[in-house]
């Protein structure tokens, strides 16, 4: 029965993901019908349609998938590892640190030296941030201190990012950086996809390996270790996996918050609250949410297209507040 439910859940998520992907391909400056989109994808339509669908809209959809997979899976993995439903790459400062890394790369003009400088810097900073969090868990800190440390990391990364913007010599560059930091997957090409794809795949691979161990960790660290869970390896996998996948996607999409918080929370009940089981559905759910939000920013009739990161934060922050209030009530 649980097997059956798990498969139905995965099926529903996959179908939704594919459906939303097709819808996303339809929207844009030149609205296309579903038939035209499919013809464009298969290369049987006009050259213009093929160009629009394949070169302009498809990268956006693929990026939505990658960003969603990364945020959803790393949110679920971090929550399982830290045994805390409030853990999330954005909240723990991983995304902000990756953003800082990217801004540093832009600021010092490292991007001119190498195409890999930007994702490299983003991932290095994400790794540093997760390393600090890891050290804190090693030192036996409580979940509360960990989240507070995450907030401190976020603030620090934010402050250093502001400093870079403040000192930036070129106002045009500043606007680029700010817009990029707000988080968006509009106007991206397959070059961006290629840039982050290997790291996202590697990161997701590491994260998905942790499933069974995360399940056992529900028992607490002592009992989990006596059941054969290698805690050091597990922490390493989750931290490296989150840093790689989130760092790489932040490098091409900017910081998009709260997806890693909201998605695992919504899907947890469908996997009977098993933290390891949650990884794969959460990855798919993340992609569904990003795609839906990305379609929404294009549908909303605003003077300028809203940034994706702004929309997810607008939805996610109140959600987070409700979550905090509810968990406090449960403790009383």
């Amino acid at each position, binding site marked *: 029965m*649980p*097997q059956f439910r798990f498969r139905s859940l995965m099926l529903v998520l996959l179908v939704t993901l594919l459906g939303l992907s097709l819808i996303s391909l339809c929207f844009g400056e030149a609205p296309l019908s579903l038939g035209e989109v499919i013809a464009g994808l298969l290369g049987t339509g006009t050259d213009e349609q093929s160009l629009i669908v394949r070169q302009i809209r498809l990268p956006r959809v693929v990026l939505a998938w990658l960003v969603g997979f990364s945020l959803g899976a790393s949110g679920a993995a971090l929550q399982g590892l830290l*045994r805390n439903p409030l853990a999330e790459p954005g909240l723990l400062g991983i995304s902000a640190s990756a953003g800082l890394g990217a801004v540093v790369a832009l600021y010092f003009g490292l991007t001119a030296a190498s195409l890999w400088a930007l994702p490299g810097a983003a991932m290095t900073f994400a790794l540093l941030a997760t390393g600090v969090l890891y050290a804190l868990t090693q030192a036996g800190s409580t979940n509360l201190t960990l989240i507070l440390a995450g907030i401190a990391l976020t603030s620090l990364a934010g402050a250093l990012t502001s400093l870079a913007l403040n000192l930036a010599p070129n106002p045009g560059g500043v606007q680029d950086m700010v817009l990029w930091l707000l988080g968006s997957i509009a106007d991206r090409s397959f070059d961006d996809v290629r840039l982050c794809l290997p790291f996202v795949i590697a990161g997701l691979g590491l994260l998905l*390996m942790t*499933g*069974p161990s995360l*399940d*056992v*960790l*529900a*028992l*607490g660290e*002592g*009992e989990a*270790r*006596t*059941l*054969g*869970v*290698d805690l050091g390896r597990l922490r390493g996998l989750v931290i490296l996996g989150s840093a790689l996948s989130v760092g790489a996607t932040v490098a091409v999409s900017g910081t998009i918050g709260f997806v890693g918080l909201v998605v695992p929370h919504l899907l*947890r009940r469908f996997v*009977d*609250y*098993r*933290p390891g089981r949650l990884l794969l559905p959460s990855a798919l759910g993340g992609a569904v949410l990003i795609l839906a939000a990305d379609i929404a920013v294009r549908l909303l009739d605003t003077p300028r297209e809203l940034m994706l990161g702004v929309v997810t934060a607008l939805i996610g922050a109140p959600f987070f507040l409700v979550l905090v209030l509810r968990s406090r009530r449960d403790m009383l």
Partner: protein
Amino acid sequence: MSLLQVSGLDVVLGGKPLVRGLSFAIGEGELLGLIGPNGAGKSTVVKAIAQLLDHGGEIRFRGRPLSAMPARERASCLAYLSQEDPVQWPISVRDLVGLGRHPYRGSWWRGAGGPRKGDLEAIESAMRLTDVWRLRERRVTQLSGGERARARLARVLAVEAPLILADEPVAALDPRHQLQVMRLLRSACQSGRGVLVVLHDLTLASRFCDRLVMMDRGELIATGTPSEVLTAENLARTYGVRAVMGEHDGQGYVVPWETSEPMRS
């Protein structure tokens, strides 16, 4: 050969010696009680045996040093029930008990298909023994204290390990559930298993355990059968209490009655 042989166990944590030169053994089919006042180092001993703490001295399982055993193999040799109750997520009782089968899973990609037949049998029999079978669809967070203690014990039994380490399994339970859990541990000792249980209740220790190890401030005070260990002198020396002792149906009881002048300086 004894099931577990602890010799010269030393544990130092943060420069403080918590256990000094402790030696004892658990035989097959034996229920061994570890008793002593708060801070005696009982939990530390259990954690050291479970290889959760660095330690000096030697801990041998069927003659093999536990510390040299691969973690996976060790996981199927000993099952550990911790003192705290930290199950984080509201998983179902069935899933909780199923986690006890973790040491027998294949690699992560092969283990994705769910539990195998032998696992399901072990899980069901552990749940029936502890009388949580009818609770199997409930969430652990919705259980009462007694139900949760039994479900966690079922998780430990599902490992089917020859050695069970239980750190104060009856600490938070009412008398009825205390007796129930002790009886379960007692019956777990049949079929050649050994059980080490940390206890505060001296009557339970006296009634259910084959042998007792009494320790204080990290050192062994006495070891032997309950009647050998639970003497007025030992109780005064380690716990600083005078107790009412007697026999009922051929089994001893110990009821701490008043504090005595402890003999420590």
